[in-house]
């Protein structure tokens, strides 16, 4: 049922860290390549923003195969930040994104604080890049990632250092593998992050009972997909109530209903990762579904829905 007595078109636009997005749907880093993989299925310009694969100073080979295992309603990956390095990304990939028609956000990673700073500084030279998502939560690299992501002081230290090397807005991408996610979020906000992304993958593993070996060559990997959604929604709910900066929600989003669940829990924008693998038209379908929901429920702007579930809860 559309509101048939009005011609209202809901406003889907949101703003994250000063980045204007025409709708709240972005891609999750590492699941969309450098923006080229899904162009046969929809236009990049339909997206709220595009977030590309994690970039490090030098090229990284990543982990040996097998790098994937399927689990119940989820998947494990141990890609290990394979990427061609920041210089090649600047030369080869970013120019082609100039005409994307949507803000480009680059996910950055490293093994040391210096790595992060270096990548951030180099990327700031590009006109194309509108924001940096600082991945302090990759479960698949031994040094760096996971340690930065599990200690509030270290997370804050990365954000503070990177901030000195760029004027681009910083989005801190947090790991869910912590006792208290709000503590982590408050630490990076305090350190100057303009937004937080929640959640990166849960640390998991699977064993092949036939071979008696881990299914991933790297033993452990990151769990993503619908299986993790309840954990992600919970963290967005917790964090969005204590932060002043906006939250980007992700983890198992595959439908408009899933996306709305995150928005109602407090996410200003959402990102789609594993869902994209299952349905290559996942993002445009979610955008259309959010619009339809707003129309049906006479919501004039999607921004009104952000955190509506806990705002309601607080009212009693």
């Amino acid at each position: 049922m559309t509101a048939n007595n009005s011609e209202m078109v809901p406003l889907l636009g949101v703003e994250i860290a000063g980045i204007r997005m025409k709708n709240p749907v972005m891609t999750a880093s590492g699941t969309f390549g450098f923006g080229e993989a899904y162009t046969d299925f929809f236009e990049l310009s339909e997206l709220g923003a595009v977030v590309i694969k994690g970039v490090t100073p030098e090229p990284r080979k990543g982990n040996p195969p097998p790098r994937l295992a399927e689990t119940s309603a989820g998947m494990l990956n141990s890609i290990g930040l394979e990427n061609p390095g920041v210089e090649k990304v600047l030369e080869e990939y970013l120019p082609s994104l100039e005409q994307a028609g949507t803000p480009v956000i680059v996910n950055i990673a490293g093994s040391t604080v210096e790595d992060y700073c270096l990548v951030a500084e180099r990327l700031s030279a590009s006109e194309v890049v509108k924001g940096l998502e600082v991945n302090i939560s990759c479960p698949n690299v031994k040094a760096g990632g996971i340690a930065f992501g599990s200690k509030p002081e270290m997370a804050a230290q990365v954000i503070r250092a990177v901030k000195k090397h760029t004027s681009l807005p910083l989005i801190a991408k947090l790991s869910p593998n912590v006792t208290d996610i709000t503590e982590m979020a408050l630490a990076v906000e305090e350190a100057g992050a303009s937004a937080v992304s929640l959640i990166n993958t849960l640390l998991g593993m699977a064993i092949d009972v036939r071979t008696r070996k881990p299914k991933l060559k790297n033993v452990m990997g990151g769990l993503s997909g619908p299986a993790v959604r309840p954990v992600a929604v919970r963290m967005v709910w917790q964090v969005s109530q204590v932060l002043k900066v906006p939250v980007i929600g992700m983890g198992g989003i595959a439908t408009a209903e899933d996306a709305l669940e995150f928005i109602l829990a407090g996410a200003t924008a959402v990102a789609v990762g594993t869902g994209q693998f299952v349905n290559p038209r996942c993002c445009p379908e979610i955008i259309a579904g959010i619009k339809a929901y707003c129309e049906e429920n006479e919501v004039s702007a999607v921004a009104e829905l952000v955190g509506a579930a806990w705002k309601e809860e607080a009212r009693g």
Partner: protein
Amino acid sequence: MKYHVPQALVAGHEQTGGGLFFLVLHAPEIAQAAVPGQFLHIRCGKGDDPLLRRPISICRVDKGKGNVMLWYQVVGKGTSLMSQVRQGDCLDIVGPLGRGFEPVAAGKTVFLVGGGVGSAPLVFLGNELAPEKEVVALFGGASEGMLLHPCLTRLENCEYATDDGSFGYSGTVIGLLEEQMKSKTPDMIYACGPQGMLREVVRIAEEKSIPLQVSLEARMACGVGACLGCSFLRSKKSGGGWARVCQDGPVFWDWEVAWDDGEQQ
């Protein structure tokens, strides 16, 4: 161009032997666009489990009818669910994906060496090459029931090998290949099948310096080059580093693959 067909009609589905099925899907755009060696990415269930699509090679196309045909084996959750769809049902497919076989540059004689369901993509290739080349298909299976009948392959010149000797040559398809090579040396070999078998074909092709293309397999998530999950190591000769089976392959020249790297599984 890749297509997402959320509701491809199942125009036919028959069991060809123990755990093996021949599936006909109506998907005109894909039938039009597909080249041999490419695959479909198929959603096997309706809920979130199994979650990921399953890659299945295109075994034949009928561009006139707009049909794409697959030959697959039930090995787990996904293929087992797939085997339960019936004519008139629909399947959610994406395709055609990947880089297909490259045509033979020179020479007249082509060998297709297929192990088990690995024969599937070679059937498509054989049908495309047959008008111009002398195509000899060598397909192996555990027993007669595991082979694809000529009325489904539509290949004229097809030799079979069975491990149990129940049909054709008694032994592996490698044995059959060596047998055939005694009387004839192909100008090109295309192969698909289990890793062990492929290594043998590589060895034979190298010995005789016959150009060889192989179709590889890997667990896939995206199937379109986005996730870097299906990587394998390139040979030093081809520049090293990782290649993605789904997008850079599944078909590779034998020399592109680092067959013996310790990091490769």
